[in-house]
């Protein structure tokens, strides 16, 4: 099965997970949330969500707590950079690989 009958003849991507392939495999650092610092978590109500707003891959959920779809998170770190309370830390993926072994 090829793409002969695909509805376009151009490169046209819509936002949504997976349009650029499984980009989670590119990640070398993973965003980890500290619920004691995250504003929506602390107040337990809709607030802030700067991480959700800035994520270029749309993989952060607008939920309490925010969750990250690691299948597609590229680990760019924009969420950690933008978080006003520094609630997000980028953690080396090697650490999680070690945990998986244990």
């Amino acid at each position, binding site marked *: 099965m*090829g*793409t002969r009958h695909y509805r376009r003849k*151009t*490169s046209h*991507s*819509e*936002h949504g997970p997976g349009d650029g392939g499984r980009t989670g495999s590119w990640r070398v650092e993973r965003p980890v949330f500290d619920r004691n610092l995250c504003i929506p978590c602390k107040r337990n109500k809709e607030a802030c969500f700067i991480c959700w707003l800035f994520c270029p891959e749309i993989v952060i959920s607008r939920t309490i707590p925010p969750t990250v779809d690691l299948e597609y998170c590229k680990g760019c770190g924009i969420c950690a950079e933008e978080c006003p309370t520094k609630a997000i830390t980028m953690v080396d993926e090697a650490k999680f690989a070690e945990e998986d072994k244990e």
Partner: protein
Amino acid sequence: MHIIEDGNAAAALGVRLCRPQVIAAYPITPQTPVTEKLSEYVEEGSLSAQYIPVESEHSALAVCIAASSAGARVFTATSANGLLYMHEQVQWAAGARLPIVMCVVNRAVGAPWNIWNDQQDSISQRDTGWIQMYCADHQQILDTVIKAYWLAEKVSIPIMVCYDGYILSHTFMPFDLPEAGKVDAFLPPFQPDYALNPREPANLNTVTLPDVRVDVHGELAHGYMEIRYLLQEDLRLALAAAAEMERRFAGVFGRTADPYLEPYRCDDADFVAVGLGSLTYQLRVSVDALRAEGIRVGVMGVRFYRPFPDEAIANALKGKKSVIVFEKALSYGYEGALASDLKSALYEYLGGTGSLPTVQNFIAGIGGREIHTQELTDTLRAATQARVSKEPVWIGLKL
């Protein structure tokens, strides 16, 4: 209505009749008067379009790419180094499949700096995926602009309408200016398959992977290679669309023409001169002179250069003894690009038949060097007597 105007005015009047919504251009000799006139039309209100002044040709085409992506009919024009400066965006417009129409007022490229006519500028853009149409007089300039919008929007491929700087752009000639109603009947408003829309957001032509991929709807979408193949496939299919274009144009305007070629006294000719643009009309004078001497010679203009009408050209040249290609451009390091393309078509369709014409290549008018009709006549006569050279021969060279 018949009027007398210069070639740039013919282009601008043709563009106005096509009702473009966005025009962006940067001035460069000899193209400048086209965009000056269009800016005046917008200023006086006789053309309802956004005229966007920019700081370079690269930006001019970038504006056209953006506006066309948003669903607008757009126009730009350039020459020579301006065209070279937009080269990156030229390639982009083709891959993005945007039906942009651009007049290229042919001029020599630097170095050394030169503002006069040859065709090295557009010929050097041959492989960018644009359709290229060449004009030989003012009526053709106006008509080709109108046809180009229809064809570009039909096949979603941008088109260069090429005409010789000064020789056509700055000379005056009578031509028929059609009524707006006729152009509207021929050319419906542009209706793109997709136009940028905040309610249907999309990334256009972003990083596209080497292989195919599943899109967000779960459908298998093209990789880069499929998209580029479809451009080539549709360029080849555009030859048939061009025939439809001419039939429709004739139906509305009453002027008929072969979509690909413009032969003159070729039917019984043993020798045929071939070229692009106004040079082929000058060659008609030489053909008439040589016919008076009893030499069976004709001349054929190639109006449609990309996609290359290989089959039509080979059929038109079947049975001829020699094809003499005159060019105002060169694929440096080899020969004229048209001569190479022609040889390829002849080999494909006539190879092994025993009636393969010889091909001779003459380079003329580089950097605006005056082409004397007597020189053309003498060159053509010599070429009918014996094959002059395997290498391209430069006419009027004073080394």
